[in-house]
């Protein structure tokens, strides 16, 4: 069995009489330590899929296995523990706590986990050595996203899930962020899943999952992934 397995997952939203199918018989597999990119147009179901994987949403049909465990069977309390201990999430719009400094934001995430990394070290690693005592309103977009990534990585999670991490950033900063994610995947051997609608970065991934209309339209395996430095768009 693969590390992550999505099996015929359905997610339907019921709005009165109208049924909206966000995911329709979605299935794919991901191995441990892979850097995966999920591509697809807007409304294809990419974020829904990542939310389910991150334990922030429930399915209306199908099964999801992570490291051998069926997370669709988890109740609220189990999901909370799953999210706390196993998942690091990077959001498109950072979602940092505005009245805590960068260091305190990372400390906040870290105080929930038993097996975590040192917040200061991680912030140094992402290149924010001089900005650890600044509040999010005093940081630029790229720096804020780096704090968010530091927050996710410091938890030492099994899965690092990134929902359009470079969506709000410019080309150069975006590339820096992607480089950081690539390093985490390759050096720390963490399973990293990145959602994007920028097809140009596909070559950096080990596996590319293409979404269309709520289901997987294509899975491409990259035997020789390129480094982000070599990719231009």
């Amino acid at each position, binding site marked *: 069995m693969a590390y992550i397995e999505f099996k015929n997952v359905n997610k339907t939203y019921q709005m009165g009489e109208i049924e909206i199918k966000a995911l329709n018989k979605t299935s794919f597999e991901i191995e441990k330590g892979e850097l995966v990119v999920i591509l697809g147009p807007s409304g294809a179901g990419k974020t829904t899929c990542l939310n389910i994987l991150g334990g922030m949403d429930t399915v209306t049909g199908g099964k999801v296995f992570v490291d051998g465990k069926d997370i669709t069977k988890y109740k609220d309390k189990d999901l909370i523990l799953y999210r706390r201990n196993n998942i690091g999430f990077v959001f498109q719009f950072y979602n940092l706590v505005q009245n805590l400094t960068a260091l305190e934001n990372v*400390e906040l995430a870290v105080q929930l986990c038993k097996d975590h990394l040192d917040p200061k070290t991680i912030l140094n690693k992402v290149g924010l050595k001089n900005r650890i005592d600044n509040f999010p309103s005093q940081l630029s977009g790229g720096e804020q996203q780096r704090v968010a990534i530091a927050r996710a990585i410091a938890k030492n999670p099994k899965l690092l899930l990134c929902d359009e991490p470079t969506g709000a950033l410019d080309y150069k900063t975006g590339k820096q962020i992607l480089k950081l994610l690539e390093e985490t995947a390759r050096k720390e051997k963490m399973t990293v899943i990145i959602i994007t609608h920028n097809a140009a970065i596909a070559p950096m991934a080990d596996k590319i999952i293409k979404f269309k209309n709520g289901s997987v339209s294509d899975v491409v395996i990259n035997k020789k992934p390129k480094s982000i430095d070599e990719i231009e768009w």
Partner: protein
Amino acid sequence: MKNRINTTCFREIKSSFKRFLSLLVMSMLGVGVFVGISMAAPSMMKSIDEYYDDSNYYDVKLISTLGFSDENIEDIKKLDSVKEVYGSNSKDVLLNTGENESVVKLIGLNEDINMVEITSGTKPKNNGEIVVEEALLKKNNLKIGSYVSIVNDDGFKKTKLKIVGTVKSPLYINAASSSSDRGNTNLGTGKINYYAYIPNDNFNLDYYTEAYVTVKGAKEKLTNSENYNKLVDNALNEIEDIKNDYKNKDIMKFIPKLITRF
């Protein structure tokens, strides 16, 4: 490691402290109002219970057209649920207060049951003295030391009485309010205007006009609660049983007395 959830919490309060304070005050007011309203009824019940317990207020009052003899009192006392029985005397009279005549209920002073509070002056020490309620003094321009007299009634040893004090009785707890009612009578206008206390000895009677009963275990319970009512109902049932015996027995004893009085 410091708890960062607390840090963000305190900083948020500090940064908008005035707003936090006003929300706090509003919540306190809301809670205060709710607590006040919830406590009003239990508070009232407890107040009356304490007052009645302190003045040893009765649980059951017995009245009879023929009055109660010492024997009757003993019989009632023998009942299981009865703690104590007290015989008491009272009579409605016309009292001349100088300027006008009022209907006054005269009650015999008893130190043990329905205990009164002397609010000024002293207790009556002999048959020539009387303590009255405040309203009688105020509305008739009298004061302690004034004299009043009982009109046309030979049921008393002394009819010219000196007011020596003012009294508050638990039998008339809302006497101070303007809408209070002291009961009806067949004298004067039919309404009792005031109450007053005289020594038991001043009554020219050899029987009691009413009997006050306290029920075993009732003082410890909360007045008017379900438990209290159950106990008193029990006592009432026992008293009802002996009531039926009296209907026949005592008539024979009293008839000679009735004839002499008329």
